């Protein structure tokens, strides 16, 4: 019988770095579940989301925040919203299912990504070296989200506040991703 215990480890072991004008830290307290919209089920899903989270589903490239579970809905494509939220439940899909029932298709993505917070007034100077998206603060607004490629790695960038960004990239290449950011920091700061 099972006398063994499994311990969880995050891709970057909770990395945290401070530099002049920017901090880089691994985010380990967030679950990520993708919610796909069933064909023709937009209204039903929207109704369920509004009823339980009190927000409307964002369009692609935008996000909406709610205080429920400190959650953020990010519009990733026309039929997909990704939900970032705080939980220590190892089955985050169950939480969504409880709230939204069968109004969407849910896939746990929590372990698929390394999440990093890049914060501080130099963050855009750092990102300029790796991110092809136009991050002009008047163009990429707070709450905007984009999926793109940085240094050949698929990435998600979300603007959380004036100078703070959440960056996600594949868990398996987390070391390469953080290296790309650290190299940018070294080159810029």
């Amino acid at each position: 019988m099972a006398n063994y215990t499994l311990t969880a480890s995050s891709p970057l072991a909770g990395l945290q770095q401070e530099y002049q004008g920017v901090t880089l830290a691994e985010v380990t307290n967030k679950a990520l579940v993708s919610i796909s919209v069933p064909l023709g089920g937009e209204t039903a899903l929207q109704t369920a989301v509004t009823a339980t989270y009190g927000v409307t589903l964002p369009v692609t490239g935008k996000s909406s925040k709610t205080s429920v579970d400190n959650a953020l809905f990010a519009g990733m494509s026309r039929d997909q919203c990704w939900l970032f939220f705080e939980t220590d439940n190892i089955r985050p899909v169950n939480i969504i299912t409880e709230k939204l029932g069968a109004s969407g298709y849910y896939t746990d993505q929590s372990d698929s990504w390394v999440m990093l917070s890049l914060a501080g007034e130099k963050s855009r100077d750092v990102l300029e070296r790796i991110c092809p998206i136009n991050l002009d603060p008047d163009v990429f607004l707070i709450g905007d989200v984009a999926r793109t490629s940085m240094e050949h790695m698929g990435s998600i960038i979300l603007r959380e506040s004036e100078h703070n960004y959440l960056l996600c990239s594949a868990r398996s290449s987390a070391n390469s991703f953080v290296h790309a950011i650290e190299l940018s920091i070294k080159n810029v700061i």
Partner: protein
Amino acid sequence: MKMTSQIQQVNRVSQGLLNNNTEQSLSFEFNGKSMTGYAGDTLASALLANGEKLVARSFKYHRPRGIFSAGSEEPNALVELRKGAYQEPNTRATIIELFDGLEAKSQNYRGSLKYDLMAINDRLSPFLSAGFYYKTFMWPKAFWEKLYEPIIRSSAGLGRLSAIEDGDSYDKGFLHCDLLIIGAGPAGLAAALQASRSGAKVLVADEDFLLGGRLNAENHGVAGAAGHEWAASTVAELNSLPNVRIMPRTSIYGSFDHGIYGALERKTDHLASSGGKPRQVLWRIYSKQALLCAGSTERPIAFANNDRPGVMLAGSVRTYVNRYGVTAGQKVAVFTNNDDGWRTAVDLSDKGVEISAIIDTRDKAPLAAPKGAAVMMGGSVINTAGRHGIREITLSNGQKVPTDCLAVSGGWNPNVHLTCHQRGKPEWQDDISAFVPGHALPVGMQVAGAANGTLTLASALAEGHAKASEMVSNIGYTPSNSLAPDSNDESCAVSAFWYVDSGKDRAWLDLQNDVTVKDIKLSHQEGFRSVEHLKRYTTLGMATDQGKTSNVNALAVMADCTGKTIPETGTTIFRPPYTPVAIGALAGRARGKDFRPTRLTPSHRWAEAQGAVFVETGMWLRAQWFPQAGETTWRESVDREVIQTRKSVGICDVTTLGKIDIQGRDAAAFLNKIYANAFAKLPVGKVRYGLMLREDGIAMDDGTTARFSDTHFVMTTTTANAVSVFRHMEFARQCLWPDLDVQLLSATEQFAQYAVAGPNSRKLLQKIVDADYAIDNESFPFMACAEITVCNGIPARLFRISFSGELAYEIAVPARYGDSLFRVLMEAGQEYDVVPYGTEALGVMRIEKGHAAGNELNGQITAQNLGMGRLVSKKKDCIGNKLSERSALNTDNIVELVGFRPVDVTEMLSSGAHFIAIGAEASTENDQGWMSSVCYSPELKMSVGIGFIQNGSQRLGEKVRAVDLVRGKDIEVEITSAHHVDPEGERLRG
């Protein structure tokens, strides 16, 4: 100024625009000689200040050469800058910013620069004219590679590489703007002011470190101030605005589709050391609009011996005196065909430099000549003298004039280069005798100022201002109502005059490539009439300067030969880059391990600690085998891993397999279309092997798909095809069957997955699977799958599938537990002597078992070839179904996958061998198929293989030869079943 440096800098006549920078001198070394200059100097201006005339030897003839220009068009003054790992060849002295401790050397000479041993080439010039390569070194043929080419290569040429890895780093980046302004001369600055005042996001790039362009080189006023002062205050204003980014030392080197521009920013080239920061940054600029204000480049006039050090472009001589306070000579003569040349004489004279003569090809003097200058109208310079620098010129009236600098102006060519990068063709404009931008400009680009042929100052300012207004309103801004900066238009009349007949002497057109007027005439005579042919035959316009000072003149000579006008003769268009871009900058940070990302599985660190040998599979690093103490060859390790797995239990990390989460009401129907075999009726809790075809009937990928609920499937793909299969399925979902309710998500990264294989695999798993889940053979038979928990409630997925042919499972847990699960499995498996196995052992077992993999699914193979023809359902539509029925793919003689064993069991098979009948010649006509995968089977104690041979399934027991001409092998083999081990499949069902 300090007295010491004043004495040394014999040609420094004033502070120029260096202002306070002259408080402290900078020391530098050129060809080992110590000199001084000031901050704000270029290497060229500092060399001229120190009276250094001879700075280089020419490409082909090793003729003495001096500084010719004051900008990036420089053909002569190429130097090797810095030392050791930081040495950079072919750097133009005219754009190198002086720093303290700078070291530079001339290149392309042997012995000393002054007494270059290779100058002998100049005496041999009759044999080295245009096309000499093609004529002189033709015979005997064998001599070319061994003798001629090495000699030519070592004697001709530019700088040398250090052959040491570049010690500097480079970076790349992305910039976005509404309006990109290329060049910060008068037009560019006027445009930047207007656009920024209108609220647009403006990016201004200039290759120079001091912005202002000609305003820093001349003495015109703008808006009531000296031109250079207006430039400085304008730059200061622009720098203070949040919507403007000014990038000095930045060359826009290329114009690409849809408003994308390439830029090279020289970050630390002006510093003694880069201090660990990237030396240069290559930017990709996304612009909505772009205004080209790149100015113009002066062109020379060709005449006999016009290449001596001291013969320079007139505007450059003026730049040196006005901007750097340096005169290029003590007695300067001016040779011109236009009004602008006269202003050089005036400016020099104003600084106290003696003007010996002004020679104008025209009849009427446009300005008053400076005091003391002899004026010759309607004349020309017909020759020069002076061994290492000009000493004297001969005029067309026979008069000889002593002079140590001849400033030549043949008019100005607009810098149209970037307008041509997308096939734009320049057009000839008669009044300035030059090419101007054509009509087909890159989308979003306009041109203003001298680059547009607007050569005079007030007009250039006005044009920059007006174009900026127009362009910002194009993208939705209201132009500011401010006016263009006020100035005057200077006189600029020009009369086309290209070259003076030089008789027996050589008149040089392309100084960088040693091309003369005679070379052009010769190539015309030999039939090279098209400009493009001319260029290639004579090498005109090649190398670092790309003919910036020579192309138009050569065209004029060509036009003379043909009796046509210049526009009729043609023009060359320009390609990127505008100025050279170092390979290091193009590579950016993608060097060494940073070339591409590395993907690691969650158990990587554990495997590393075990001393695993890793193999790159795509971007993944996978454990290939795990050597143990005493094992000296990979085969020992791999054989042990296979034997132990087949005997007891082994674990392999298969996390890298592609995993796709498939959900939706129509998920089953969708899979039925994606896979060639039937999937609609796969029961929940079951896994099925699936073969995916391309639409042409060729196998694309294979794997297994598990069903967890009516609407939920999980597919695995091969590691290599994970991305392309996902793309293919999205194509099917969005483009072919948009009415199906199905959603796809990549789950490759989400799960760590391990194969647990071998007769003890179930016993091992039972130690970690929670009690709620029964995995005995009856409850959890072959091809079962389930969502379970392990180790007290951790969610997992269990699949009873086997690649090895043994009783086997694959177990997946959220990636965060992957490392831990592997360690737990190893610990729990101790009692069974569990062994980790790598990709080699995995490969051995699959070959022993006859499973197809990447070697088999090579893009030529159908289901029929794999012996799976009957799997392809004829009762449904699926991708590849129809075209797999094509007759040629279904003859009796198609190749089929079978096994092969050597008749002599000591022989080692090789993959890639082709099958030939015994006694037949090893020829293409007799080719019957090929061996796709081989391994040494520890179980059978011999080399075994699988491969494709015509009609293989009907030929079991037959003997053929496996001929591998590459490795020199010719082995007799017996055709067998592909299932070398456990052909009945009893083990995996046990």
